[in-house]
């Protein structure tokens, strides 16, 4: 009886998620006539280009996640220290990039970061040595674009955990002899770890599957998995190879979740309290 209200969602999940993913898996195991085979996976691992793209995808995702964490941590802390109404307003502003179209956002970056863009013009005018820099169509461009879109995730997840931390604990730490730095390292930071882990997990997964940003802001060297999947389907009609690549993407996502569960516990994604 409890499950009855879940039926619509359950049907939708099966039709639009379980079934396609299963088909994807089946497709990735098909080659020529006959039963299932690991042909496409072997093929994939024999091609240095795919290995490189896999490694690149994971590396860029990790880097973008790290940048979002470094930028987002102080920002989230700041939000916990100001008036709640102001914090809500700033959180909404921080979330804007998440609600704008990826295309609009990316073209805005092109205007800003291109070799003749606002940023480089300013740097040249200021006489910064080495300017203009190659900010677009490079790994720098991809990292700027990705970390920007990951930031709202990171900030909101960190904020919710930080907001639950009693700041008087810092007084307690000081009272027993902890300098502000040691109090941060031994008390505050460990208490934010569930938020750090949750933010990194969701940002990393989001980065892994990103498509438009690396395609428009990077060069061929920054090609990521999603672009290759699209190329294999659209241009090369290689459905089975694309399916194998998609399964790889899914595997990395599952791996990230497993790691999170091992280190922090999945329930911490929903329950941020100590």
């Amino acid at each position, binding site marked *: 009886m409890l499950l009855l209200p879940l039926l619509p969602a359950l049907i939708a999940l099966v039709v639009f998620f379980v079934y396609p993913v299963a088909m994807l898996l089946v497709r990735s195991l098909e080659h020529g006539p006959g039963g299932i085979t690991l042909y496409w996976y072997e093929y994939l691992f024999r091609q240095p280009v795919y290995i490189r793209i896999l490694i690149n995808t994971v590396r860029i995702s990790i880097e973008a996640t790290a940048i979002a964490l470094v930028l987002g941590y102080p920002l989230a802390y700041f939000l916990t220290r100001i008036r709640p109404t102001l914090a809500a307003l700033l959180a909404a502003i921080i979330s804007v990039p998440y609600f704008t179209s990826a295309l609009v956002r990316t073209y805005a970056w092109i205007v800003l970061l291109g070799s003749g863009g606002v940023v480089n013009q300013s740097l040249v005018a200021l006489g910064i040595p080495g300017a203009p820099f190659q900010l677009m169509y490079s790994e720098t461009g991809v990292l700027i674009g990705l970390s920007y879109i990951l930031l709202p995730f990171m900030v909101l997840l960190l904020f919710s955990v930080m907001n639950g931390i*009693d700041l*008087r*604990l810092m*007084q*307690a*730490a*000081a*009272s*027993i*002899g*902890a*300098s*502000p730095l*040691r*109090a941060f390292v*031994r*008390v505050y930071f*460990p*208490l934010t770890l569930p938020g750090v882990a949750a933010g990194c997990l969701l940002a990393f997964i989001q980065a892994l599957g990103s498509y438009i940003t690396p395609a428009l802001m990077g060069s061929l060297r920054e090609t990521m998995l999603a672009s290759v999947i699209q190329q294999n389907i659209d241009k090369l009609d290689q459905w089975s190879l694309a399916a194998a690549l998609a399964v790889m993407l899914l595997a990395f996502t599952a791996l990230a979740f497993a790691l999170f569960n091992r280190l922090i516990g999945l329930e911490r994604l929903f329950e941020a309290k*100590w």
Partner: protein
Amino acid sequence: MAASPSATLGETLTVRSISKSYGEHSILRDFSLEIAAGEFVTLLGPSGSGKTTILMAVAGFVPIDSGQILLGGRDFSALPPYKRGLGVVFQSYLLFPHMTVRENVAFPLTLRNTPKAEIVARVAETLELVGLKGLENRLPRQLSGGQQQRAALARALVFRPAVLLMDEPLGALDKKLREQMQFEIKAIQRRLGITVLYVTHDQEEAMYMSDRIVVMHGGKIEQTGTAQELYGRPASRFVAEFLGDANVLEGRVVAAANEREVEIELASGLRMWSTGNSAAVGEQVTMIVRSSKVRVCDAGFNAEGFRLMAEGEVEDVAHVRNSVRLRVNVPAVGGTLQVQHQEDLVPDGPLARERVHLAYQPRDVWLIAQP
């Protein structure tokens, strides 16, 4: 600590004319207090009286506008909190939620780079001292309120501070546990010889635990003294009322004659007598008569030292433990008086609505001159 002979950890804590205000709003004005080494001093007052501000100023969490705070004669008011080396027990305990009891208590020592073997020994003996042995591996959320309180106390004591500051540490506990903790804290304090500055709004707790009580009101000291002094010789109406069960009457001195017996006339014309106080004829005075010093009797009552006061009607009777508490409406004093008797003094007790007479002894009437 259990092994070492009763050490005298305590040092003198001196607060010298400190002031604190937030904008126009003055919290403390020229507050001074000296606490001897090993002394247990309580700041007692209602909320907003500035008692917690003083404690937090000593701990270093509230910056003071002027004045000095000295430990053993050395001024440390310019030091940040983490360099002051005082033990602090907070009202809400503030245990570190991600650390076990053992880690919480060991933390002050690891911060001081104490050798590992010594940390283990000191944590064990401190947990034994506060009665938490066996719970070392629990997280704070797995402890009861009383156990959290003990863990917070252990964390504040483990590095052997000279002074322990306690901010309403028992406020969140139920009455029975509170009384037990009062006893234990007092025993630990005596054993360690530590100087304690304690903050509470509970006058019974203050009277039970303190060597000396400082009654605070509006950022200033109302009176300082032992529990007995404050109770028996309150310096102001505020102190008398705050310490509880005081009947407060007002009148004018009409005669101050033989053997320092002072005769006072109330607004209604009722006359009362007081001995042991001196007052000048014509002076306006406040009379304090503790509820336990007023007796219910009949019109013919005539016992040595007693005088009849007036007639009244019992409004309310309550039996609390071995005493009877009455509220008696006495028109002659223009209000209700509290009366408290031993149960066996009035075996059948007066009932509500009954008319009774009240008697008192002049030596129990304490006079406070009105400004």
